[in-house]
């Protein structure tokens, strides 16, 4: 039984929640540090939203403890918890203007009128909506509404802000803008943010730490770099970023590395820190770590495989090459879209190479 960190803003200790036969949250333990931006990342049904709702108080866990700044809050209704939530569809009160929306929590706490006015104005400045007090939600764009929702929650100075996929309803460009905005606001106010999303790019770009969840459990908790570059489980590897995965069979194990030979001089070298590989294993490597060589180019790298270009996908900054190898295997390689990349066409024979430490072996 893990001991919760007494300094944590939020602590979840072995929390379980079932809906009928479905185990939505199946033993989650998590500490969220003060001022941290933590993201719960995972596909639908992984339990991230349920976990958040339990922190907010809209669901009660079947087992386990939830602490806010050291206080046990299981059984405490949402209106008496010191956390506030931002909803995916904003949930602004349509019959009130922006000012009344933002001031709602303050009014309930009987904050005097002048102070209310001041704090609302302050908060609107923070979210860059000065002067919008008298507008109505129906007159605002999606991004503006989201900022009002943010202001409404933050003006109460909660111990933590819970954001439930808040940018899901926005278009891509706006979403990226808002991501930066959110990050800025969080830094400015130093409020603890707990963010829920299924978009791994979003999670990577905004978070201090990410908890990758699947089927009610946290598969990995770490910084974005850790999660991306050293995924702990196949699921994480597959979910976060595009990942190549090839079944690995060790032909030779030598000092700290394992080698799989594929014929024609092709070989895959992967790090094996404990010197042993078990039976079935998968080697993973990120597409941007793979170099694409045309036949006339020199090849440098620990691993090298040759194949035929199946598909070329132009992504703007990057060009994505889907390469078919011998034996039905496929690899995706990313290359900056330079002139060289443009000259590689479908059907061309290429050689892919990468360094040993850019790959990882993941047990099944």
């Amino acid at each position, binding site marked *: 039984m893990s001991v919760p960190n007494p300094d944590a803003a939020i602590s979840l200790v072995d929390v379980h929640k079932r809906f009928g036969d479905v185990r939505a949250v199946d033993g989650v333990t998590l500490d969220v540090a003060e001022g941290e931006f933590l993201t719960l990342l995972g596909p639908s049904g992984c339990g991230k939203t349920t976990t958040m709702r339990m922190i907010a108080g*809209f669901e009660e866990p079947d087992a386990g403890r939830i602490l806010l700044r050291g206080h046990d809050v299981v059984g405490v209704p*949402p209106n008496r918890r010191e956390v506030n939530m931002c909803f995916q569809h904003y949930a602004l009160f349509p019959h009130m203007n922006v000012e009344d929306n933002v001031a709602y929590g303050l009014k309930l706490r009987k904050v005097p009128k002048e102070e209310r006015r001041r704090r609302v104005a302050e908060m609107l400045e923070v979210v860059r909506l000065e002067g919008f007090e008298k507008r109505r939600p129906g007159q605002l764009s999606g991004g503006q509404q989201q900022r009002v929702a943010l202001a409404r929650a933050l003006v109460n100075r909660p111990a933590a802000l819970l954001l439930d996929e808040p940018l899901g309803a926005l278009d891509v460009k706006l979403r990226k803008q808002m991501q930066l905005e959110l990050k800025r606001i969080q830094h400015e106010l130093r409020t603890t943010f707990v963010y829920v999303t299924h978009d791994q790019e979003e999670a990577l770009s905004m978070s201090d730490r990410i908890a990758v969840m699947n089927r009610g459990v946290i598969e990995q908790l770490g910084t974005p770099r850790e999660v991306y570059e050293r995924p702990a489980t196949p699921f994480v590897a597959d979910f976060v970023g595009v990942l190549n995965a090839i079944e690995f069979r060790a032909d030779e194990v030598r000092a700290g590395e394992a080698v799989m030979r594929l014929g024609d001089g092709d070989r895959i070298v992967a790090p094996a820190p404990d010197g042993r590989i078990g039976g079935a294993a998968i080697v993973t490597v990120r597409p941007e770590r793979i170099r694409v060589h045309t036949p006339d180019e020199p090849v440098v790298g620990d691993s090298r495989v040759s194949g035929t270009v199946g598909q070329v996908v132009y992504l703007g900054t990057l060009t994505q090459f889907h390469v078919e190898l011998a034996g039905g295997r496929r690899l995706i390689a990313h290359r900056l879209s330079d002139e060289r990349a443009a000259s590689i066409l479908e059907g061309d024979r290429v050689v892919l190479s990468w360094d040993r430490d850019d790959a990882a072996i993941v047990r099944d």
Partner: protein
Amino acid sequence: MTTTARVELSAPPVAPRARRRRGLLGLLAAPTGFLALFFLVPVLMVAAYSVGLLTLLPHDLYLSLQPWRDFFASETHVGLFWKSVRLSVVVSAVSVLLAYPIAYALALVAGRRKYTLLLVILAPFLTSYLLRVLAWRVILGDEGLIITLLRDVGVLGPEGQISWLFYSPFAVYVVLAYVWVPFVALPIFVTLDGMDRDLLEASHDLGATRWTTFLRVTLPLSVPGVVAAFVFVFIPTIGEYVTPLLVGGPNGFFFGNAIQGAILQGFDWQFGAAMAMFLVGTVTVLLVLFGRYLNVRAVAE
């Protein structure tokens, strides 16, 4: 290039849009015609009778406003109009007050069973109106449930009566409210059901108790439904005459009864038509006002 020239030379075809419009008009003609013939025309005819444009019997006045003058001069009949207005206001208010908790429970508490329960509430409409009204005799009448109960318990003597329970204006109010509550629950239910649940959670999250959430969020947002329900009851009830006939007793005579009496018993078509047109006029004005109110709200939002 040659193709464009060829098109210019031939005669311009009937634009598909115009053809579609004609088709739409044709489709609308039938229901509009039906409405015109069976609604507008009779109303216009009643209006014609009220000013003597049409006359039925030899002693009717031709082209005269006398029926209208008689109506406005008659304290009794104008008084009956106000009596009916009072009836409508009270019945509408009571119905709404009773229906609101029902609609609320259905929309926000009942969960998966809400549509089944809705059906249960609407089920009485499958039975005859007359039966449902007369069933009240069993409850409120002499030898009815209430009187018998009070006699058994001793509050009333063995022959005791409460005359105002049945065959009285009180009975009219009770029966009408009872009949209208399920109708009224419907628009309120629809409004509440359509409300974004997230709003309620947001309110809780920000620190409100359930009661405060109801007062500050649910109630204000349900006002359009409530107003619609109120008007929905108010307008037909002003002209109500069947229920007063059945349970109203000697003092249960309302404006609708006066109209019915004038036209069906009294041979006084012109007077009755004037009263009927007055009712139609009042209702029209109310509908227009109500419609404006709704539009104003929509703009404000």
